[in-house]
Structure formats: structure tokens, C-alpha cells
């Protein structure tokens, strides 16, 4: 049995937010040995819902749980001298540090990349922040909506005549985590050849902006600014109501426009006013009326497989509970069961991609606060149990 993809890679996760936690979780998912270091009161994410049973207990944050699967956890107070000494003692034992503090904070307490790299030549430190380590806005505060706005995507999301619209959830944070994992992996691969570490600077706003290929180049190529969707007449290619929910359809795939008209049983779609993309945009309201009329009494679950048979690009709007029991995700073993010491047994979304030789391994729950303190401080750093008790009394851990 081969080891994990990143077996032997040791990671310290100092992040308190979503992006850093997701980045280091991905490294852990594929075999890295990740230790999450939290302040003694717990990472900020422990205070964020949803909570198991809506109980705001710090071990019941489902957001913290799912972002910190497969990690070990210990506590340390970096605001104390002793706490900083502990971090310095841990640094030579790891390959990667993931952090998301405000740029300059770690330097201000003597733990910047240069200082840490002196303790551990070849160290990779991945910093994931709202605007990156440099530039005039680097010290500004980010929030999901701010990253989303400044990453251009809000300018084209939502409807004309209304305010730009943020997407649901914390997409920018996850995007920061994905790019953090990718950039860390690039640096680890380069390290094998050069022996040199890197301070990796990931900007969450730039992650969002990186998706804006057509939007950015529309200006660079034509001087045009991409618009949001028109308030009416642009439903084709957007969710349309049917009998029991919403469906979405777009031209292309293996299906011709004739196939699509046949599927909806709507021969009027073959009229010249719908003959190409430009015509359809011009007569959008009429097209919407035809399609919505054709499906208003139909079930999305009947339409979905039929459309696939017709080789159409077709989707159904699924809510989270439908996704949670999706047979396709089950077939991919996307969900795993874990046994959490406080919550008990629970299913979690786990597997980002499948690999033939080094697949996702066993799924372990997120650490409880300070769960591995003794293992890290006594077995790892050689403190006595009395010293650990004293550190706890001094609120260092």
C-alpha cells in the first residue's frame, strides 16, 4: 500500500479563518501531517455557524469541523514570550507554515518569514490574506463581500438596474484555500530541486479576480465593460421554474438547436427570431415564455435524465439536502463518516478529487481545543507534564 500523496510533509496551521484552514485541510486530506495551533480561547472559526443542533458550543461549529478535518490541534498564545518560544521550537520540525494574519503581524512579534527561515532553511510559509502582503490596500480589512466586490465578479453578478450581487456562502475564502494549497504544492515541488524555501503570498481578492477572464479581457481587447444580466429576457442559460423547482439549460453539448426545441416540444423555437445567439438575446422574453410554458408542470427529476439522453447541457437546481443524498456524489465517495468526540457520528463532505495510487485516506474529525497538547508538548518538544501544567496556568497554552 503506497503512502499518502503528501506523506511526510509536516504543516503548522496558524490560520484562524476559512481560507487558511481550508488550504491546510487539503494538505491534510492528501496525507500531510497538519498541526493546527490555536490561541487558548480557540480559533475565530469556532464561533461561526452552522452549529450542531444550533448549540453555539465551540466544539459544535460545523464550519470549524469541516474546515479542520484530518488535523491535530494544540493551543498556544503567541502574545506571550513563552508562546513564541514554543512556536520557534516547533518550526524546525515542520516543512510548511500556513498563516492568515494581517501582513506584518508575525514580523512585529519576531516571527516573520526571514526569522523563521533562519530556524529552518527551506521552510515554505504560505500567507493567505485579503489583499496580499504588498500594495496600498494590503493592511485594509477584508470580508467576503469586500473580496468579492474587488475581485470584479460582483460587477457582473445580479441584474441590471439592481445592486451587484455577492454569491452565496464564502466562495472567495474557499478559492483562497484552493490556491493556497496549489501554491504550497508548487513551492514544495520546487524545494525538492533547489533546496530553497519560499514565502508564498496569496491574495484572496486576486483569486476571485483570476476567474474574470472574459471580463478583464473585454476591456483590454475592445474597451467594453461587461454588464450584469438584463432583468428580463435572459433566463435561457439561467434557472427557470418548472413544476417542482428550477432547471437550467444552455445550447451546445451534443444537442443541436433542433434537438433542444424537440425536447421542449416547442416547434416555435425553430423560428428565425431564435436562429442564433444574437437573435435569441434580442427575443429573450419570448423565448423564456415558450420554455417556461413548456416545463411548468414537469418535474426536474424527469427532465434531467431525458435531457442527458438528448445530449443537452442541462442541470437542475439542487438544494443542500438534495446534494447531501446525491447518488452521484455517493458513487464518488465524496462524503465520509467521522466519529466526533462531542458531536458523535456524522457525515462530512470530504473528497475534492480522486486519485488512482494515493487516494484520499481515512477521514478524521477536527481536533477539539488543545486535544493534542500533551502529545505535542511532552512527546514532541520534551516538556514535562508539570511544565505543561504551568504553561496552562500561565495561559500560554
Amino acid at each position: 500500500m503506497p503512502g499518502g500523496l503528501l506523506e511526510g510533509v509536516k504543516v503548522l496551521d496558524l490560520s484562524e479563518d476559512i481560507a487558511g484552514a481550508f488550504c491546510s485541510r487539503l494538505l491534510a486530506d492528501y496525507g500531510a501531517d497538519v498541526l493546527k495551533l490555536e490561541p487558548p480561547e480557540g480559533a475565530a472559526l469556532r464561533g461561526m455557524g452552522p452549529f450542531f443542533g444550533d448549540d453555539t458550543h465551540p466544539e459544535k461549529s460545523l464550519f470549524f469541523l469541516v474546515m479542520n478535518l484530518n488535523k491535530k490541534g494544540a493551543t498556544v498564545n503567541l502574545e506571550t514570550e513563552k508562546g513564541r518560544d514554543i512556536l520557534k521550537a516547533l518550526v524546525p520540525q515542520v516543512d510548511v507554515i500556513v498563516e492568515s494574519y494581517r501582513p506584518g503581524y508575525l514580523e512585529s512579534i519576531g516571527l516573520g518569514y526571514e526569522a523563521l527561515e533562519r530556524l529552518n532553511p527551506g521552510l515554505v510559509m504560505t500567507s493567505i490574506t485579503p489583499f496580499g502582503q504588498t500594495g496600498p490596500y494590503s493592511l485594509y480589512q477584508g470580508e467576503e463581500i469586500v473580496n468579492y466586490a474587488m475581485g470584479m465578479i460582483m460587477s457582473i453578478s445580479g441584474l441590471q438596474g439592481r445592486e451587484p450581487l455577492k454569491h452565496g456562502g464564502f466562495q472567495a475564502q474557499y478559492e483562497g484555500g484552493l490556491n493556497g494549497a496549489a501554491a504550497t504544492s508548487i513551492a514544495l515541488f520546487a524545494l525538492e530541486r533547489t533546496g530553497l524555501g519560499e514565502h508564498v503570498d496569496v491574495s484572496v481578492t486576486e483569486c476571485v479576480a483570476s476567474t474574470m477572464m472574459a471580463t478583464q479581457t473585454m476591456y483590454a481587447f475592445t474597451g467594453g465593460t461587461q454588464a450584469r444580466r438584463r432583468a428580463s429576457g435572459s433566463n435561457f442559460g439561467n434557472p427557470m421554474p418548472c413544476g417542482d423547482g428550477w432547471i437550467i439549460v444552455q445550447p451546445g453539448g451534443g444537442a443541436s438547436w433542433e434537438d433542444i426545441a424537440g425536447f421542449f416540444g416547442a416547434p416555435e423555437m425553430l423560428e428565425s427570431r431564435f436562429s442564433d445567439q444574437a437573435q435569441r438575446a434580442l427575443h429573450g422574453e419570448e423565448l423564456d415564455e415558450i420554455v417556461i410554458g413548456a416545463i411548468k408542470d414537469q418535474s426536474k427529476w424527469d427532465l434531467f435524465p431525458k435531457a442527458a439522453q438528448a445530449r443537452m447541457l442541462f442541470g437542475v437546481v439542487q438544494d443542500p439536502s438534495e446534494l447531501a443524498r446525491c447518488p452521484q456524489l455517493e458513487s464518488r465517495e465524496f462524503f465520509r463518516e467521522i466519529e466526533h468526540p462531542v458531536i458523535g457520528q456524522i457525515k462530512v463532505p470530504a473528497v475534492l478529487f480522486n486519485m488512482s495510487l494515493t487516494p484520499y485516506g481515512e477521514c478524521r474529525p477536527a481536533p477539539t481545543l488543545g486535544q493534542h497538547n500533551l502529545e505535542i508538548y511532552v512527546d514532541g518538544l520534551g516538556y514535562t507534564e508539570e511544565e505543561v501544567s504551568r504553561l496552562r496556568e500561565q495561559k500560554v497554552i
Partner: protein
Amino acid sequence: MTLPLDGIRVVDSTYVFALPYCGGLMADLGAEVIKLEGPGRPDISRTGGLAATFPEADPGEDWWNRSSTYNLMHRGKRSLVLDMTDERGRDLFRQLACVSDVVMENFTPRVMRGWGLDYPNLRKIKPDIIMVSNTGYGHGDGPYSSYPAQATTQEATHGHCWITGYPGGPPSKAGASFVDFLSTWSAMFAITAALRYRNRTGQGQWIDLAMYQSGAMLTSEYLMDAIANGRVGGRIGNRHPYRAPQGCYPALGDDQWITLSVGSDEQWSALCRLMGRDDLARDPALANVSGRRDNHDRIDEAIGAWTCGFDKHELMHTLQGEGIPAGPVLTGRDVHFDPHYRSRGFLERVTYPAERNMGTRPFIGRPYKFSRTPVSIRGPSPTFGQHNQPLLEGLLGLDHESYRQLAQDVVVATAPTSGNLEVRVPAEEAVKRGLMAAWDPDYRERLEDL
């Protein structure tokens, strides 16, 4: 300077957005990336579809080399055009795989299998190959594995539309091919980690990416709420589940917007002070976050009445100066002139050879920087089939006579044998019809000054 992926050769047999973009990013990092297309199957990004544009809105004679998104994603690559439906094409593909490190493809699962080029077969001829397959729903025996898919329809199936929309309104699509990029980055992570693993163990492997799965992962907290609490979440637009007020408000000018998010009572007091609204600061109903959530509409009105008098960048500086997270809605135009983006060099200028008649264009770089290794776009996109001869004769040692025969039989080609240019609407007409929000006729001069 050694680049991270120097010496790595990648066969990029992928279409549309997700993995072609990953290939472009790998070229930035030093890899030799060979974009492979069929003579009758040019990448859809070349046709001007999916909101792509052409220089000065002119497709030109060789339009297939000129579209914006094609040029962004295929920067720094080489181009090989080879007919994989011909056995000679497949044979050359096998030879190419034998001298490559990574093969990427995004055909529906049956295609590579049908050609005998799926992982079990490629592995026989190149045991340590790293192969990446990106599909809509993933390989395997799941019920949707054979379903055709692109980002637009997947945003619905993987849960993104359900959680996105104005409060009280219907599910809404993202503004761009959102899920593609999740696969772009997942692939970058998986490939580079697999390369490292191969260096250590000598073993390659197959990476089976499903866009559906990547998209579902980004709704994890909603999935957990459904699993644990039986809740399906809802659409809260620009609001935050905990912080209040948060929103997107009008700024000075046409279609200009500022976002802000208040997370503490101190930030709330600071905002009221900036707005000159002592009455709101003293209102006991708004003293804590739950009160502000209950009265969000009323607060939004007050904020909008204040923000609409100021420039969006000025509002950001003012609000951030008081410790309130805030930022303007930047458009595709704004990003070219914003001082922060410029200071970080996020957009990189690519200069084309004179005969391409494309000038110099700024393109999106990467969202990460390395302290020791400067990475940048290494050159323009190739023209269709530009490297057929150097790759087949030079790299694979094909004799010139056989090459000429292949060209004659259109097994290799330097112009697509099919593919339709999408109909274009002139810019002024596009603005009138609401297809574009604005148009700067003098954009070339503006960009020159950067």
C-alpha cells in the same frame, strides 16, 4: 533562474476553460505545455463564444488565433493540431505521451477509452505518466457520469445557484463559468503534488477530477447544516449570516457601488459618525447586532443615502480608515487602473509579434507570488498548429516526407477545418442593448499610459 516546473512537459488535450487555464498557469511556472486540438475541433474559446472578444472587435482573417479568452489561457504554450480520430494521430499521441510527464484531457469518459488512450493503456507505454481527466460529473459508475456538462448547468446541480440570489428571489446563476476555475486550481494542486510524489517514488498515477464535486465542496457549510440540522439554507443576497449591516450600496456616478461590512458595535458607532447620524448611533434598537439585523432595511436606506454622494474609492479609504471592512465593486475596466492591482503587477502585458497584429495586451497573471522565484507570463499564445513541425519532426523524429503526407491528409493542420465564429454586435449597439455596461472608445490610449 530555475522556474518551479522547468523541464516538465505537459500534453494539454483539454478544451473550454478549466484545464486549458491550468495549462497556461503551468506554462507561467516553466513547464513546456503542448496544447493539442483536432483539425476539425478547435477550442470553443477560439470562436468568440462564452463572452470572449476580439482585438478592436475585429475577428480578422485568422479569427481562431485572436479571441481574448483563448489568448489568456494559452499564453506561453506550444500548439499541436492532430486528428485523434485517425490512427496515425493516435500513434503520434502515444509517442508524445512517452516523452511527456503529464497528460491532461477533458473528454467525456467514453472517448479516451474508445481510443485506447485511457490511463490503463497510457500507463502500459509510459509507466510513470501522470494523467489528469476532468469531467463534469467524474468517471466511475455513478448515475450522472455520462451526462454532458458545462459550468453554466453545473452551477445549478452543485448547489451554487440555490444559495445565490437576491433575498426572497429565485436561485441565481454566477456571473461567470465559476466552477471551471475550481477545477483549474484543484488540478494544479493535484498535478504538482503528484509530480513531487513521482520524483520520490518513481510512480505516476491518474487524477480523476469532477467539476461537480469541486463545486459541491464549496458549499460545505450548507451541506453540514443540511446533514446535521435538516436545514436547506436560503438566499440572503449581500447580507451576512452574523454581521450587520453588510451590503452593496450606490456610490457617486452611474452604476458605481461600494460594499461594506460591520462586524462590531465599535464599527457601527464609527459608521454612524461618518454618516453624521447620531440618531442611529443612539437608537437602542440598533445597539447590538441582532437589533441591526432586524432593522437591516432601514439601515440600508440610511447608508445608501450617504454613500451615493461619494466616489467609491474615496468611500473605501474613509471607511477602512475607521477600521470598517469596505471596498468598491471593481469592473473589468477598473481593474486596469486600480493602484493596488497595479502595484502588485496583477495584470501582465504580453507583446505579440508584428505579424499577429494584436499589439500589446494586459492579461490576468496569478493570485500568488513566490518570494524567491519571480514568475510571469512567458509569451503569447501560439497560432493554431504553430508547432506541428518542430514537435513532430524535431521532438518525435518523424521524417519530413511522412509529415507532408500527414499535412496533405489533414491529420495535422494549421487552420481549423470547422468551427463557427459567433456573431458579434458592435460595441455601441451592445451598450444600447444592455449587453455591455459601458464602452471607452479610447481604451488603447488609456492602456498605453500604464
